[in-house]
């Protein structure tokens, strides 16, 4: 008898367990609840025009809004501006959203947009976008809800500037009153900062007058720094927090199975070759390096195969400027590498002088470097490892004090124009300037690409850019390394932005809601 009761109970429980998850799929967003978010480090400051790094955008981006923003496909949509139009190639008219209020109740008008641009233009502010805004030809308010911005010359990347973090709109009155933006906050965003302590909890409450009807769903958002990767992961597993950023890839598989994992590609790993130093003064040797290194193997061993190598040399999958034609252009080909070395006058890899390999002592770089070193040595090259501090690695970018350096880069926006800041002979502050890299045709293409507005024409230009980069091989092009956030399954509505824009995931908490039915 007893056994029967037990059996019935078990069957009932199993049925319930089977039915329950099915109902979740159709669940409607619920309002209320608190989201506890484990972040990488202290956000440092709140000034919406200063770049404190990705972690800080989760503070800035939820308090403030931009005129336009990226949607789930990485395309522009209106935020504080409802829509916009162009007059000719250089003039933009923005129509602002009416009825928006700052957290302190001040209505939002064109005056605030102009004051914000003025503040960024003021060198005293030390704003991240100072150069871009100071370079505008003119901007003015036409009426309370219309703004006209005129560029000096056509610039295809201008809208990306407006959508980027560090171009958040602040209130004209706050600027006038001399508010300390680094320590005080007053935006139009979904959340208001209620209390905070350095290295402690940053508590946000719902903005009841938020301009998106019914949003945000959450009552409270609490951000807590956990510097150590494993501590952060454990905080999620133990339930201390509901969402974490910067998940180490070792935990991807486990968290994907037991929790919700949101992966994206926002950071690129590559190896700089200094073309002023032997043996990389010969183009053929640089090209050979790209054919010796097996990108897929490097990604498999250094990041467990998470990440992406498919995308030609330098565009992430999902980017509007992803070049299908270049897929597989850099597959390893040792015969070809041998031929190239022979053309450079080396009959065998052993004849190539030893290569000094500069590597920063952090795992995201040293793991990759260790695999590449092994691949180069297995091919027969001699490689001498040199460990440096991260700060030295960063200095080397502009000083060129290396032969070959393991490095990485992130994109501020998905426009391929970011390559200009690497490989343009004068604008290339991140690479060319350090090693005096110059290719006239590349310079021309970059300048043309910036001025061209038509999408198809631009795509063709950047195809040629990438082909030239493969030809010149200023880097060993590797892969987009994986990045991820992870959440408890009860966290719903988290969206990722494709095309290397993962850093914007963290400023979109207005859509997140907590499903109470999930335990």
């Amino acid at each position, binding site marked *: 008898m007893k056994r029967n009761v037990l059996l019935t109970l078990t069957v009932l429980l199993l049925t319930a367990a089977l039915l329950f998850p099915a109902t979740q799929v159709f669940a409607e967003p619920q309002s209320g609840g608190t989201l506890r978010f484990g972040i990488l480090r202290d956000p440092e400051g709140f000034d919406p025009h200063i770049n404190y790094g990705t972690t800080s955008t989760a503070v800035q981006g939820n308090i403030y809004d931009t005129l336009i923003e990226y949607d789930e496909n990485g395309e522009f949509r209106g935020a504080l501006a409802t829509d916009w139009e162009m007059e000719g190639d250089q003039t933009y008219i923005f129509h602002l959203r009416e009825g928006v209020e700052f957290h302190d109740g001040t209505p939002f008008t064109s005056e605030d947009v102009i004051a914000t641009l003025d503040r960024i233009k003021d060198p005293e502010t030390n704003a991240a976008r100072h150069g871009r805004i100071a370079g505008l030809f003119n901007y003015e308010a036409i009426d309370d809800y219309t703004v006209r911005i005129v560029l000096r010359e056509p610039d295809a990347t201008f809208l990306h500037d407006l959508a980027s973090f560090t171009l958040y709109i602040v209130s004209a009155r706050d600027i006038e009153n001399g508010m300390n933006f680094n320590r005080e906050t007053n935006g139009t965003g979904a959340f208001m900062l209620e209390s905070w302590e350095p290295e402690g909890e940053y508590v946000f409450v719902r903005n009841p007058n938020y301009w998106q009807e019914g949003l945000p769903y959450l009552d409270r958002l609490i951000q807590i720094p956990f510097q150590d990767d494993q501590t952060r992961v454990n905080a999620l597993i133990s339930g201390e927090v509901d969402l974490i950023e910067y998940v*180490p890839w*070792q*935990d991807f598989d*486990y968290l994907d199975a037991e929790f919700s994992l949101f992966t994206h590609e926002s950071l690129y790993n590559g190896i700089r070759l200094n073309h002023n130093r032997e043996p990389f003064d010969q183009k053929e040797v640089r090209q050979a390096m790209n054919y010796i290194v097996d990108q897929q*193997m490097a990604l*498999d*061993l250094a990041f467990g195969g998470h990440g992406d190598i498919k995308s030609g040399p330098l565009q992430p999958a999902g980017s509007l400027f992803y070049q299908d034609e270049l897929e597989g252009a850099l597959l390893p080909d040792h015969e070809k590498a041998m031929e190239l070395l022979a053309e450079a006058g080396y009959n065998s890899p052993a004849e190539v002088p030893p290569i000094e390999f500069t590597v920063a*002592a952090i*795992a995201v770089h*040293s793991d990759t470097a*260790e*695999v590449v*070193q*092994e691949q180069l*040595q*297995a091919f027969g090259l001699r490689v*001498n*490892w*040199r*460990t440096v501090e991260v700060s030295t690695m960063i200095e080397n970018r502009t000083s060129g004090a290396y032969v070959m350096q393991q490095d990485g880069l992130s994109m501020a926006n998905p426009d391929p124009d970011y390559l200009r800041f690497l490989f343009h002979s004068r604008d290339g502050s991140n690479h060319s300037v350090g090693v005096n890299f110059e290719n006239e045709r590349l310079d021309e293409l970059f300048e043309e690409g910036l001025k061209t507005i038509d999408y198809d024409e631009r795509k063709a230009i950047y195809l040629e850019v990438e082909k030239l980069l493969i030809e010149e091989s200023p880097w060993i092009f590797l892969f987009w390394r994986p990045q991820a956030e992870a959440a408890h399954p009860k966290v719903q509505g988290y969206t990722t932005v494709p095309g290397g824009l993962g850093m914007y995931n963290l400023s979109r908490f207005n859509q997140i809601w907590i499903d109470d039915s999930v335990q």
Partner: protein
Amino acid sequence: MNRFKSIKRLLKDFRIIICGLFILLLALTAIFAPIIAPHSFSQMNTLDRFSGPGPEFLLGTDEFGRDILSRLIHGARLTLIISLGAVAISSVIGTLAGLIAGYSGGWTENILMRLMDALFSFPPFLLAIFVIVFLGPSVINLILTIGLLYIPRFARIAHSSTLLVKELEYVEAAQALGASIPRIIGRHILPNIFAPIMVQMSLTLGAAVLLESGLSFLGLGPPPPTPSWGRMVQQSARFMQMSPYGIIWPSVIISLTVLSFNIFADAVRDNLDPRLRQ
């Protein structure tokens, strides 16, 4: 006759047999590493990552699919070269300094021994980190740094022993006969203070292994691809949940090695010190 007796006595102690055999085995492994190692220590393999112990990879593989056993064997080479090199430097310089200070006395003694005190007052690990960061990690720099750090250990022991021995009659006799100072120190004092220095050498070898592993763990050891035990522990720690072998084996080997040197030193002291002998 006397020497033969003391060696025989040492060989009766089972601690010396076991630890001595382990150290001998380690030394032979290090010398013949390329012949003994079943695999290349740097060969990476995507398909064989994190495998557990098995017939192909006796102790398993690490996160890059490299054979852990082969890496331990080659790591033994590195660790022993660094430790032996360091102890050679510190014991020769330290003993010499102690002998000179102890025998001559006066200002020479004062200056030499205060110098040793100054060196001794630094926490060895901190000083090692400082020097390695400054000089850059390489095998030679590690040998020099660790060697330098352990000089005072030998200087102090040689100094205090010399102070005792130099008062003895046979030293006075040698002096009376007009023997030169180097001859007195080399022929009459050194052989009689050698036992405690040998004990100290074994102890210091253990400490050097630990210090080298610690520095490698912090990323201040020899650069890759040279395998080093401390670095193996550090690299595998991140993957502990995926496969514990990468961290277990090198940790076990480090502990066993340090323990062997220490117990060996203890046993030698017990047997050579007349006061501790029953």
